[in-house]
């Protein structure tokens, strides 16, 4: 196994080593962090935050509706969390969960791909410019180009379009071990020569728009980030037991990277499988439990490492689902859904209008709150970016505690 030092020397030889702005600097150690969680497939908002006293809810969903026993009521009585969200319900009671109701696209689009693209780019015509809303926002920082670890996509799916900037590709990683060039185990002494050569074949900085130039640019980012990551995460030990699933693994990696003071401002992680056209109850219960338990473990771990107060998690999903269930014990693509914004810094409570089953739009709970308002609020209130250039003139609202 190549040592960290050799790896860094291997890349330093061609000038690719990163100068780490992070380690040891107070500013970076107090860096606020946003973790964006994509609930891919279209999470059913109505069965996430449930209008449990509205009789129309059960009429529309004879088999998909949750019973009283499957819901954890909120103080105002007419709404409740899906029981699988017990750990989030507890955080809500502590005032650490903002529930954004009726959130969605100003003009509904029932295609997964279009809706996801619109959410991730924050552009209603997402195919003109592939940059993501966070990728663009981060470029407001003067050091955005020199700091490729400013944002990280976590997970096997590769970089999220959310984190695509107009200039710099932000890295994505599934595990730290996989994030380095490893020599043949039989010839470990070959490591430095191998790393030098991999750096050299990717060194040509000319940008001619060719795929080779693109690959070289990504490779240079990867090699530089590899060295910096190896350095910064050396001492992390997780302080809590995370649930055993892929989503929790992603969140553990987030905690590890936050603990290293790499200066990463934003993470994007994905929990998929919400496209519940059939057998929704079992499927969504499992997924929401993974969501709540994973996020709660992340905050516990963060608290033990002393960075919970600079951590905020927000969830999004491309759309909600039809009010009326289909014949397969599921629901089809709908419109408005619900987002959570979670953390000790969050001003907990209910935001937006609760779903009104009396005024549906084409069979759907309409989106009464433009998704870009949530982005604007998080950008301005948490990360300190100007929202206007990123999401247009949708006004932000107050989501965070003062100070």
């Amino acid at each position, binding site marked *: 196994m190549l040592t960290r030092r050799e790896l860094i020397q291997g890349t330093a030889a061609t000038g690719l080593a990163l100068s780490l702005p992070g380690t040891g600097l107070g500013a970076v150690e107090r860096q606020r962090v946003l973790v964006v969680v994509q609930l891919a497939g279209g999470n059913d908002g109505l069965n996430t935050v449930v209008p449990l006293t509205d009789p129309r809810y059960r009429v529309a969903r004879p088999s998909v509706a949750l019973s009283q026993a499957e819901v954890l009521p909120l103080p105002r009585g007419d709404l409740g969390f899906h029981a699988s969200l017990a750990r989030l319900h507890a955080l809500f009671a502590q005032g650490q969960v903002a529930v954004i109701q009726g959130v969605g696209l100003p003009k509904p689009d029932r295609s997964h791909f279009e809706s996801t693209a619109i959410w991730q780019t924050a552009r209603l015509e997402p195919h003109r410019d592939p940059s993501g809303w966070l990728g663009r926002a981060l470029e407001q920082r003067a050091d955005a180009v020199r700091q490729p670890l400013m944002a990280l*996509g976590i997970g096997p799916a590769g970089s999220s379009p959310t984190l695509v900037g107009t200039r710099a590709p932000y890295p994505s990683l*599934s595990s730290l071990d*996989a994030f380095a*060039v490893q020599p*043949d185990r*039989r*010839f470990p002494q070959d490591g430095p020569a191998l790393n*030098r050569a991999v750096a050299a074949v990717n060194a040509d900085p000319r940008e001619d728009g060719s795929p080779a130039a693109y690959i070289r640019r990504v490779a240079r980012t990867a090699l530089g980030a590899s060295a910096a990551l190896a350095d910064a995460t050396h001492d992390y030990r997780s302080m809590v037991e995370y649930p055993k699933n892929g989503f929790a693994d992603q969140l553990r990696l987030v905690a590890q990277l936050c603990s290293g003071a790499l200066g990463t401002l934003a993470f994007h992680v994905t929990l998929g499988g919400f496209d519940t056209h059939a057998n929704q109850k079992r499927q969504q219960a499992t997924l929401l439990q993974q969501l709540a338990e994973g996020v709660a473990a992340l905050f516990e771990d963060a608290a033990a490492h002393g960075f919970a107060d600079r951590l905020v998690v927000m969830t999004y999903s491309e759309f909600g689902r039809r009010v009326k269930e289909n014949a*397969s014990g599921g629901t089809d693509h709908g419109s408005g859904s619900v987002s959570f914004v979670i953390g000790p810094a969050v001003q907990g409570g209910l935001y937006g209008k609760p779903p009104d089953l009396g005024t549906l739009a084409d069979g759907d709970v309409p989106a009464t709150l433009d998704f870009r308002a949530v982005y604007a609020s998080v950008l301005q209130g948490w990360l300190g970016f100007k929202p206007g250039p990123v999401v247009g003139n949708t006004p932000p609202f107050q989501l965070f505690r003062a100070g």
Partner: protein
Amino acid sequence: MDPSKRMAHLLRRAGFGLAPRELEQRLASGFERTVADLLEFQGTDDGLQNLDQLVGGILDFNAIEDVRTWWVYRMVHTRRPLVEKVAFFWHGHFATSIGKVGNATWMAQQNQIFREHGLGRFGELLQRVARDPAMLNYLDGASNRKASPNENFAREVMELFTVGLGHYSETDVREAARAFTGWQLRDGAFTFVAADHDDGNKTFLGHTGRLDGSDVLRILAEHPETAKHVCQKLFAFFAYDGPDAKALQPLLRTWNETGGSIREVLRTLFVSDAFSSARAWRAKIKSPAEYAIGSIRALGGTVTPRAMVPLMARMGQDLFNPPSVKGWDGGTAWISTSSLFERFNFAATLTAQRGGEGTSHVDPEAIFEGMQPTSLADVLDRTVAKLLDGELPADSRAALRSYLDVPDDPKGKPAAFVFDRRFVDGKLRGLIHLVLSTPEYQLS
């Protein structure tokens, strides 16, 4: 393009790359004959009878890992490479995921449709895929009932499989969903349940009548936007992205003359000037399957396909488990910082397979095809010739040469070049690891 380069290009696109000594044989046949051999595959024994005998025995098609292993073995060893490549194309087009379907046998059956009908008429392929158990399950067609239509398949068949976004309305989605009602699964097979079918009048894309699912598919298959959409996708997959109308014209003409024959559309494409143009060469980023299978084929030997399957997944392509019904995005989406490391580390794992006969091993010296190299310069030239069509930027070539010049014992001095076991095991494997890690090798 010189004939060797053009042939290597053809076999990368219409197959999964050349095996040792294959180039000579293909060149002896010539380009046009090779194209014909690839398309009229019935004339070539696929050489996979031994594999097929294992199905139901050590290959258990109730387990998706075994189905994946079976397909990877086919891609590596088939003598009908275009059949597997076309199946791979349709797997991305009619993307269906084991994650939802949950039945590995159905996934294998669908794959067999792509193999048997993937070069036939598009309309026939579409009718079969729409009745296929994996698809009926994946896009919820099987639970689409008159009393409560499920629009999932109706929407995606238009958005992704045929005419494309912008060529249908929400009303068309609803009307198509009505037409497909009653298409269900019974005991794992397609069945039509008249009681659940809505046989009322429908108006779909300008056609009115008591339309059923077959009618909708026929209307879609014959729609001019389907010809454009599918020809454009075939061109982009096999030649280069973003072809202009002029480049697509010959494919569309063939499509119209042959009633949507994929075989004839591909023949038109492969023999076209555009296919063998400078614009097409190295224009595509290899998918993980192309990268992995191509590397395994080039290095000969016998590699355990079961061991390669999870490595391909880590590079971003888990066969039978595409990320969405849109398939894999491809292109630059294949290349992220983490997926690049996965490629580098795949190259390390592959080149380190050094078991003996009967266990997983590659034969790096196979790239020299029996003619021993005479110097380090010769090693480098011939490796680059074999794996990179002989073309690598001078700086990169110099970096690889520096790597070869570093003695593998750090205290040792460069010794005289000897092509022995030690050189092959150490430096040659390392060199191939590096070649497989160059930006140029990621390109097809």
